[in-house]
């Protein structure tokens, strides 16, 4: 069922050596490859047939669901619409991600449009990894969209990672955060050669005492470029913080535009942004501990993207 390339992608995207335990849905080349539900987590194809609905029962604790996507068909551009309903009081981990294997000169792409309804008191950890491999010269395109609606006292932590091989990525993240809910997003993107990545984020703190912490770490090598936009909009008494850091190397280019909008007098919003080459004092410190220049650069980037 899974060939060698599929296994390689699953390992990189979902840390899976074999079929996962618990609920899962593996999509390959635009079609369902394999699916398993659990007592508390149901997965069904949606009405239009262009995605899945993952319904997590209220009170589900300490379960995980894997929904990796594998793309290895030349010329295929796959679009899916997935809906996640995280029931009240549940505490789950969702492992998503897309791996493209490109072996020809035709482009391959995947756009995953995910909507999350996070009910009261629910906690979700969402881990999404994107990677592209293969010797083909076709462009590898990944355009994920994530829309999160958080009800009351909910907690969502998102780890969105893209660490290699993707030629073009346009990512859109939106969130609406309800009373006393907390959203934490960490985005890590590494581009090289002539790759391009864009991330547009619109986070609305609509509930009283809502909180958001958005962290972005980018490494831009070769002739690649990355653009990062984030609008943090406060409509109530809340806390919001944006931290965007980019390391540019070789001829990398970066545009970072953080924006804070306080539309309520009790909003507290902060941001820090930095773009620059690897700091010389960091290099000198590591070299003074015996690492050569390349090893020092490697260690700094490894720590930065951890």
């Amino acid at each position: 069922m899974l060939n060698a390339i599929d296994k390689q992608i699953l390992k990189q995207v979902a840390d899976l050596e074999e079929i996962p335990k618990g609920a899962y849905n593996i999509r390959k080349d635009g079609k369902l490859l394999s699916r398993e539900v659990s007592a508390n987590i149901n997965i069904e194809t949606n009405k239009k047939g262009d995605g899945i609905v993952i319904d997590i029962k209220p009170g589900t604790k300490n379960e995980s669901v894997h929904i990796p996507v594998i793309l290895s068909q030349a010329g295929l551009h796959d679009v899916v619409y997935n809906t996640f309903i995280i029931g009240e009081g549940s505490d789950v981990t969702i492992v998503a991600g897309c791996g493209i294997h490109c072996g020809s000169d035709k482009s391959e792409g995947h756009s995953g449009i995910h909507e999350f309804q996070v009910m009261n008191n629910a906690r979700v950890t969402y881990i999404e990894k994107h990677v592209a491999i293969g010797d083909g010269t076709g462009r590898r395109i990944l355009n994920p969209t994530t829309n999160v609606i958080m009800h009351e006292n909910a907690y969502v932590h998102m780890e969105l990672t893209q660490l290699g091989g993707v030629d073009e990525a346009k990512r859109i993240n939106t969130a609406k955060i309800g009373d006393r809910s907390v959203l934490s997003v960490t985005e890590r993107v590494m581009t090289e050669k002539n790759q391009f990545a864009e991330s547009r984020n619109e986070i609305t703190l609509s509930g009283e005492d809502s909180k958001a912490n958005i962290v972005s770490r980018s490494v831009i090598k070769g002739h690649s470029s990355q653009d990062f936009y984030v609008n943090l909009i406060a409509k109530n008494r809340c806390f919001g913080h944006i931290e965007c850091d980019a390391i540019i190397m070789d001829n990398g280019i970066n545009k970072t535009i953080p924006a804070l909008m306080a539309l309520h007098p009790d909003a507290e919003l902060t941001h820090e942004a930095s773009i620059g080459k690897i700091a010389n004092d960091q290099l000198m410190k590591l070299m003074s501990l015996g690492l050569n220049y390349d090893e020092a650069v490697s260690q700094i980037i490894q720590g930065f993207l951890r």
Partner: protein
Amino acid sequence: MLQLKNVVFKVSGSASDTKQLSERTIINDVSFTFERGGFYAITGPNGSGKSTLAKLIMGINPITRGKIIFNGTDIGKYSIDERSNAGIVYGFQHPARFKGTTFRDLLSIAAKSEDEDKLVEILSRVGVCSMDFLDKPVDSKLSGGEIKKIELATVIARNPKVAIYDEPDTGIDLWTIGPMVELLKREQKENNTTTIVVSHNKVFLEAADTLLLIKEGKIAYTGDLAGAVPILEDLSVCTFDELCQGGDNAECYR
């Protein structure tokens, strides 16, 4: 043994008013031998070149002329990492802050080992008590004292032949300086580490076997602290003469 032979360090820059390229001599023909296992303190007025001298030994700045010989080998052209691997280690006055890299990462690199027991042994040598400290990222959230301890630990973890500390008391409270001096002396005795401390602090000047006083890029005095006291108390060493209106006005505490 570390020998400096006629070391000169010049920097070029343009004078703001004339826009002509000019050269400034920071270290002006310094020769000195640091004996194995000795404890040396390098001191002098601000701008005298003492930190620069330490940086030249480590290769952070390249010498313009002269030689640096370490255990018989000319290391003048060695890079920072080559000097580190030869046994010379440097403790920075303002340690670098990283994003993501932890104390454990730095200590493992320094000690060339990820072995938990080995790391714990280094922590106890330095006097860091808590194991949780190891996994803290070495970033801007750490206090000055915490990052100094990390800096010291990474130097000691290298088991250096020559340990250079650039103003190690910067940002350290009065109660921590004493133990810090004891730590350096202990390392010197137990491992025969040649210890070079750049400092203004009397505590380090008293702890050293030999004092080097640098003034305007030259060695003005070498010897013990007692012999240096007249020079240290001499107002002519002060570089703020032009700004002062005399003792009544500036209330100089020298």
